[in-house]
């Protein structure tokens, strides 16, 4: 008999919550997000659709003063280089993740089933801070958010391709309502991803033990917490 069971609770054990592939894809994507959002904001600043400029410290793409001095431009060239280098990291990592997710059953196991009823009841519980966290099991709100941000990611890549090549990929640009609408969708998709990141990182701050789990893959649980 262990001390824990003598205290009345089942023995603690560690379980594998996130596979190595998921962890690699997650952190690679985190780097890609910083590159794409940071450089995207700088590119936005060169010709904003709305009269809003992102603060330079939050953007990626060279020291604007140096760029202006040397090239008579405010760091757009370097931001574009980051964006069109980062897109390879984003897309290759995304493809590996999607193929892995489908073939390994990761999506089927962790994201489904998910229905509106479960989503609503979990959402209400979450907003009352009464939704317990079970390592390795996504609640319905998490499932919807993760599936949603993955869908937005697909829209971002496709709308990005439509903006990059409105000529060679003109059918794609047409699907997005033309060049200008594709730009707007690309911007709104960024806004959705940033909103997701705010919620995502806030939840990690509220449940800090999830952070080491995304690095080591393992979580410490009570014996009765592993059930799905």
């Amino acid at each position, binding site marked *: 008999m262990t001390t824990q069971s003598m205290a009345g609770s089942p023995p603690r054990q560690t379980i594998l919550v996130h596979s190595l592939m998921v962890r690699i894809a997650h952190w690679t994507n985190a*780097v890609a997000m*910083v*590159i794409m959002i*940071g450089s995207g904001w700088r*590119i*936005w*600043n*060169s*010709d904003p*659709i709305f009269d809003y*400029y992102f603060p*330079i*410290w*939050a*953007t*990626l*793409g*060279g*020291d*604007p*003063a*140096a*760029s*202006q*001095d*040397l*090239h*008579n*431009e*405010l*760091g*757009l*060239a*370097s931001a*574009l*280089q*980051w964006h*069109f*280098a980062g897109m*390879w990291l984003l897309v290759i990592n995304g493809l590996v993740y999607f193929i892995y997710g489908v073939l390994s059953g990761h999506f089927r196991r962790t994201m489904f089933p998910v229905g509106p009823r479960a989503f609503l009841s979990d959402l209400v519980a979450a907003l009352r801070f009464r939704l317990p966290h079970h390592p390795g099991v996504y609640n319905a709100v998490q499932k919807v958010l993760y599936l949603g941000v993955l869908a937005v990611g697909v829209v971002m890549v496709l709308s990005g391709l439509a903006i990059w*090549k*409105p*000529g*060679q990929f*003109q059918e794609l640009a047409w699907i997005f309502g033309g*060049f*200008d609408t594709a*730009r707007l969708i690309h911007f709104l998709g960024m806004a959705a991803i940033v909103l997701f990141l705010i919620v995502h990182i806030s939840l990690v701050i509220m449940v800090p033990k999830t952070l080491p789990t995304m690095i080591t893959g393992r979580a410490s649980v009570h014996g009765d917490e592993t059930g799905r």
Partner: protein
Amino acid sequence: MAIDLKAARDVLRESGTARLVERRGFLKGGLSLGALTLLTGCDVTHTDQVQSVLNRMSQWNDRVQAALFNPHRLMPTYSEAEAVKDFRFNAYYGESQVPKIDGDRYRLILSGLVDNRKPWSLPDLYALPQTSQITRHVCVEGWSMIGKWTGVPFRTFLERIGADLSAKYVGFECADGYYSSIDMASALHPQTLLTFKISDEILGPKYGYPLKLRIPTKLGFKNPKWITALYVTNRFPGGFWEDRGYNWFAGV
């Protein structure tokens, strides 16, 4: 670092103080500091290594775009009603500093892998077969504008001067010190025009009088204005913005 972006952009537009300092591949300060520490936690002295990776990625993207380029794929065309009459002025300096070219004395200089290097006068150029197009000019900054341009198909002109059509590049030099270059496949695209007119009128001084390349398969900065010389070559010629970090192929 505290720069009022909007004000700075206005100054850029008006000042016209382009400093032709450096050639290809020098983007000092390839990172903003905050992003640098966030990204890698590495020292600022590694900036040159980061920049060299970015340059190589840009060259890789040149190759990818050349492979994506379909020489028969036409860019979308638009109706007369969609064409902007008062087209936006765009250069690396202010509108007051555009070159004023005397049409009577103007000659287009040819060099490189060209059989007949006789300079072309404007009447000779205007005598070439002309066509019009209404296409979208897409700027690297993100804005775009539909316009109507009229001129000789560039392929026709290249054939007329006996250019080596198997060469890799066509380069351009302009009266304002601007220069650029394109790949031969894009030069031979049916919508690539050596233009004399915009909105059915002879190009005004701010639109590149007397000669502008209209190439709708590429971003706006690959459409040089005030062209005074062109050459055919197998040596990579670069370009004004390309040497400052813009992607060279810049296909649309």
